[in-house]
Structures are given as structure tokens and as C-alpha cells.
């Protein structure tokens, strides 16, 4: 009898103890215990904010789908998604959905499955295309002998974004030279004399009603010296515009020594939104279920410099607190932390030589190639007051896959065929484009061959 009692007491104590411990961990700040597998490279920074994806403990696929779409939906729409959900909700494709339920992101992109996770979080073997496109060999004889898992090869096809790879686009860009006659990216309008630009600065100034102040402290002459030559100074953006912040919408503005990205977002909304969507700033994004510290090189999965271990990422990290030096932000800010081969090889590259030539005034603006030229590319934003050139601050936006870079970056200076070949060669990327592509992707050749054997390509108006 006594032995039985002891056993009962032991088990009740053990179960209560364990339950209590797990509940305590669940409501604590560090829930690493509950991570059931290494998370993907894209999500590992926010892996402890479980509720970002698991918005409800129950609900399964549809609940997770909402979470995916809330972050990635806009990007997919912009990419003119080749396989949108609407294709698979069509009843005539019900049999295909039985084989591969492409209505839900998690069918192909399951989190917490490190053993089967491929690039871009894909957790399916490479033959997923074949399940619906098994007759492609008949429609395209050139594809007849290809391996059934070779569809998503570099330079051929992507499931979502084919803006640089669709047949008519390839047809329109056959036989382009590797380097264009006028290689140049869009130049940002940063002149203080641009009336639209100054108008925006004036509107920003009007937001802060309190007079110019330095928070009651004597102004540091070094800080004033840094600031007074900047475009912020020319536009009339002074101390209080960034340092006087309202802790809540209706509260009084108070002096903040180190303003965060919210201070910049007032004028630079697009850049801040990009920063918070990418791997530099996603830990600071709104809507995270737990507050996370800013990203730091110590948390990164790719090689980082040891002497950057103390750096935390915010706008001022790359742009400087008062100098707002975009040239520093374009290269030195990156090489100050990143220590992978591609970064280390940049300094010796032809791109870097062009960048230095531009900085020295030997090349016109837009012909140099910095880290930012490719990884924070210039985009044209359409607005009521005209078009603006804005740097996309989501540095991961055109890397998944890297063919996304073709139209926004590479084709400003290079022909399509050369760009496809270069991006498909990991050795070329590793060397930071120090060598010519060793492999040729035949997509353009096949398009050319097909055009010769069929009627003229679809010219609008025919």
C-alpha cells in the first residue's frame, strides 16, 4: 500500500512539475525549447515569435496561409505569380489538387523540417512540376529528354516569378551584347533644388510643431559639423525632426537620444518598409508577437566579421547617425560586417573598379556598381507628384531566386543572355563576377530555334 502511494505521489508530482515547467517556458521570453526543428534561413531571425505564423493554436493550413500571405502576398502579386492560388481553386483542377495541393503555401514550404529543406524553404523533391506538366515533352520537343526534376534549374523556370524568363521576353532579348553600350542604373534625385523633394521635406517639418531644440543639451559641434553638409540640412530637416518623438500618437513629443527607424519612416516610408521586410530589419517589424532585439552579426548564419559582433542593425548603422552618407552605406557598411567570399572578393572586381571610377568623377553617376546597386536596387515609385527613384531596402527581395535580379539590376548594364549565364554559375557569384560564366544556359537558343520553326512571334496588333 505504501509503495503504491509513493508511486502515485511520484507520478503526480512528475506530471505536475513537467506541465508547470512547460507552461512557464511557454509564457516566458525564451521559447527555444518548443522549436521542433531548425527553422529556415528566411525565418530563423523571428523563430521565437511563434504567433507571427501560428496566429491561432488551431486551424491548420488556412490559418498558416493567412500568415504567409500577410508578409509575402504583395511580393507574389508584384511578381505576376505564375501559379496563383486562383489556378487551383478552379474546380476543373480538382484532380491536380489531389496530387499537389498548391492552394496552400505550406504544401511546398513546410517550416521546421530541416532534413528536407532546400533553397528558398522548399520542402518538396525537385520533381513537383512533373506532376501536372508531364506532357511537356510533346508540346516542347526541346524538353523531351530533360530530367524530370530539372525544371526549376537556374535560368529556366520558376514556380512563382518568371518575369525575366517567359518565352516572349526571351524572344525580345535575343542576341544582346554582354555589356550594353550605355550601362547605367537609375540615379536617385537627391538635389535639394528639386521642388518636389523640398516640398516633401517641408511637409515633414510641419509635422513637428515644437521649435528647434537640442533637448536642452548644448549642441555637440562635431555632430553639427557632420550634419550641416548633408542633404537633410539643405532640406531643412534639423535636430527636432528626428529626435523629438511621440511615444504614443496623441502624446507630447519628447527628446530621444537614439531614435529608431520610426523617426526615419516619417519621410522615408518606402525605404523603412523595405528594411523591415528584409533580413536586416525583420526583427524590428511591427506585428511581431514578442518584442525582439535588433539583428546582430552574432545571430547570422552566414559568415560575419568577428570585430562586428557588437553591431546592432538600424538605419543609423549603415547610414551614420548624422552624416547620412549613402556612399558609405553602399559598400563600407556592408563589408564592415559581411565576411563571406562574395563580399571579400568585391574589392578586386570590375564592379568595384567602376564604383571607384564613379566616386572619382571619372564615370557618370549610375555607372558604378556597389553592393547596394545589386542588393538594394533602385526602383521607380509612381506617385501623384511624379515618379521617384527609391532604393529597395529589402536586400533579400531579389535573391529568391536570384533571377529576380535580372530585370531590376543586371539588364541595366548587361544583355539578358549574359545575365542569365552569370547568375546561374555559383563560381562566378563566389568570385564576385571576377570571371566569365563557364556554363551556358540554352533557354535563349531554344527560343530562337522555336521561333524559326513557327510563325512570327506574337506581335501586338497582328
Amino acid at each position, binding site marked *: 500500500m505504501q509503495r503504491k502511494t509513493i508511486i502515485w505521489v511520484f507520478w503526480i508530482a512528475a506530471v505536475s512539475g513537467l506541465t508547470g515547467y512547460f507552461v512557464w517556458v511557454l509564457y516566458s521570453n525564451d521559447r527555444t525549447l518548443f522549436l521542433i526543428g531548425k527553422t529556415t534561413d528566411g525565418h530563423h531571425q523571428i523563430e521565437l515569435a511563434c504567433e507571427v505564423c501560428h496566429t491561432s493554436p488551431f486551424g491548420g493550413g488556412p490559418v498558416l496561409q493567412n500568415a504567409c500571405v500577410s508578409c509575402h502576398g504583395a511580393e507574389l502579386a508584384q511578381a*505576376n505569380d505564375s501559379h*496563383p492560388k*486562383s489556378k487551383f*481553386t*478552379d*474546380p*476543373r*483542377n*480538382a*484532380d491536380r*489538387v*489531389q496530387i499537389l495541393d498548391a492552394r496552400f503555401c505550406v504544401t511546398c514550404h513546410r517550416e521546421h523540417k530541416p532534413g528536407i529543406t532546400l533553397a528558398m524553404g522548399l520542402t518538396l523533391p525537385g520533381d513537383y512540376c512533373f506532376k501536372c506538366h508531364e506532357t511537356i515533352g510533346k*508540346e516542347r520537343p526541346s524538353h523531351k529528354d530533360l530530367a524530370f526534376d530539372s525544371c526549376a534549374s537556374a535560368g529556366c523556370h520558376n514556380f512563382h516569378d518568371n518575369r525575366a524568363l*517567359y518565352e*516572349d*521576353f526571351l524572344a525580345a532579348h535575343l542576341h544582346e551584347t554582354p555589356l550594353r553600350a550605355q550601362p547605367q542604373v537609375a540615379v536617385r534625385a537627391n538635389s535639394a533644388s528639386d521642388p518636389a523633394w523640398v516640398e516633401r521635406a517641408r511637409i515633414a517639418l510641419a509635422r513637428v510643431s515644437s521649435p528647434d531644440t537640442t533637448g536642452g543639451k548644448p549642441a555637440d559641434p562635431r555632430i553639427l559639423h557632420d550634419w550641416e553638409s548633408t542633404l537633410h540640412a539643405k532640406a531643412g530637416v534639423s535636430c527636432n525632426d528626428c529626435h523629438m518623438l511621440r511615444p504614443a500618437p496623441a502624446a507630447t513629443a519628447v527628446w530621444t537620444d537614439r531614435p529608431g527607424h520610426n523617426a526615419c519612416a516619417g519621410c522615408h516610408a518606402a525605404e523603412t518598409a523595405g528594411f523591415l521586410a528584409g533580413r536586416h530589419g525583420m526583427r524590428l517589424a511591427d506585428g511581431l508577437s514578442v518584442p525582439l532585439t535588433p539583428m546582430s552579426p552574432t545571430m547570422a548564419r552566414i559568415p560575419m566579421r568577428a570585430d562586428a559582433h557588437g553591431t546592432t542593425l538600424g538605419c543609423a548603422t549603415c547610414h551614420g547617425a548624422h552624416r547620412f552618407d549613402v556612399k558609405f552605406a553602399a559598400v563600407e557598411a556592408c563589408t564592415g560586417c559581411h565576411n563571406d567570399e562574395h563580399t571579400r572578393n568585391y574589392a578586386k572586381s570590375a564592379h568595384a573598379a567602376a564604383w571607384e571610377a564613379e566616386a572619382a568623377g571619372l564615370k557618370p553617376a549610375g555607372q558604378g556598381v556597389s553592393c547596394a546597386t545589386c542588393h538594394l536596387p533602385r526602383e521607380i515609385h509612381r506617385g501623384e507628384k511624379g515618379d521617384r527613384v527609391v532604393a529597395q531596402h529589402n536586400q533579400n527581395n531579389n535573391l529568391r531566386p536570384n533571377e529576380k535580379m535580372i530585370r531590376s539590376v543586371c539588364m541595366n548594364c548587361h544583355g539578358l543572355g549574359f545575365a542569365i549565364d552569370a547568375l546561374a554559375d555559383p563560381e562566378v557569384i563566389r568570385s564576385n563576377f571576377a570571371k566569365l560564366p563557364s556554363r551556358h544556359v540554352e533557354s535563349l537558343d531554344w527560343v530562337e530555334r522555336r*521561333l524559326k520553326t*513557327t*510563325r*512570327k*512571334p*506574337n*506581335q*501586338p*496588333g*497582328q
Partner: protein
Amino acid sequence: MKRTYAKITPMLGLAALLAACDKPTETAGITPQQMADALHAVMESDRTVYTRLVVNRLQNEEKVIKASEHWKDQKALPLPAQMFRYGSEMVGKKTDAFTYQLLSLWPVNKQNAPRTDVEKSGLTFVAENKGKNYYAEETLGGKKYFTAIYADTGVAPACISCHNGHKDSPRTDFKEGDVMGGVVLRIPIK
């Protein structure tokens, strides 16, 4: 006598109540076929307006803008078939009361060829029987649908010239007024 009434009256009352409940209310309900015909009338008219007044007029007559499959890249007008498909996708996001697609026995994009038996027989029927629609029921993915198929004709020179000249079109001898495909409209039924 009294006992008989006592037994019968509640039974009669119950029977009357059940009868009143069971009988379907005679409201102005519409059949799936009527609903399909009405929806198709709207779709066909909207697309015909777009094809004639926008695409054919501005591209072929006034020659101020082209229509192209890659309208965004080429700063052109979306094709009428695309206008139709984008509408269909938008409807799909708003409701699952019905779905519709534009299919053809001679599709430019092979994914728009008929796949189900009803689609195949329906598209053949409307192509061979001008002026008639095709109605059937089919089960897809375990769900039952009322399927209506309507002929889709080349209503403007723009339709004919583009399809006849397209490198991926399996047929190049369309004439204005020919049946080029069909609108397949599905309404889930019990």
C-alpha cells in the same frame, strides 16, 4: 365519439404542422440554368464591349495603343481573354457560388484545353451547333456541379487576326463570327 376526436385532432394538427414545414416555400427561386444564362449574358456583354469599343477601336482602327498578352511590360492593353480571366480570378476571391473559365478546342495556351469529359463534349457541341448552349452535371473533386457551356465567337477583327497570327495557335483559319472556344460556367449543386 369524444375519444375519437380526442385522438384524431392532435394527429391532424401534427400532420398539418409537418406538411407546412415540409413543403418548400413557393418563392421566386431560379434554376441553376437560369442563373448561368444570366451570368453569361453579363460576361459576354462586358467582354464584347471591351473587345469592340476598346481593343478593336484603339488598336485596329485608331491605332493609338496595342493590345498584348504582356501588357504590363509593353505598356499595352490587356487582351480581352485576359480581361475575362482576371475577372474570373477576382470573382473566385469574392465567392464560391460559381466559377467560370474561357476554354477552347484550339487554345493558344495548352492549359486552356478541355480537361474533363463534360468540357470536351460541351465545347464540341457548341462549335458544331451554332446558337445552342450545352448544359450538363458533373462531379469534380467529390463535389457536384451544374456546368453550362456557351459558344465564344470572334466578335471583332482583333480576335481573328491575333489568333490566326499567334505562333502558339493550333488553328489559323478563323473568320469573324466563328466559334473560337467556349465559356464554361460551373455552379455547385447538391
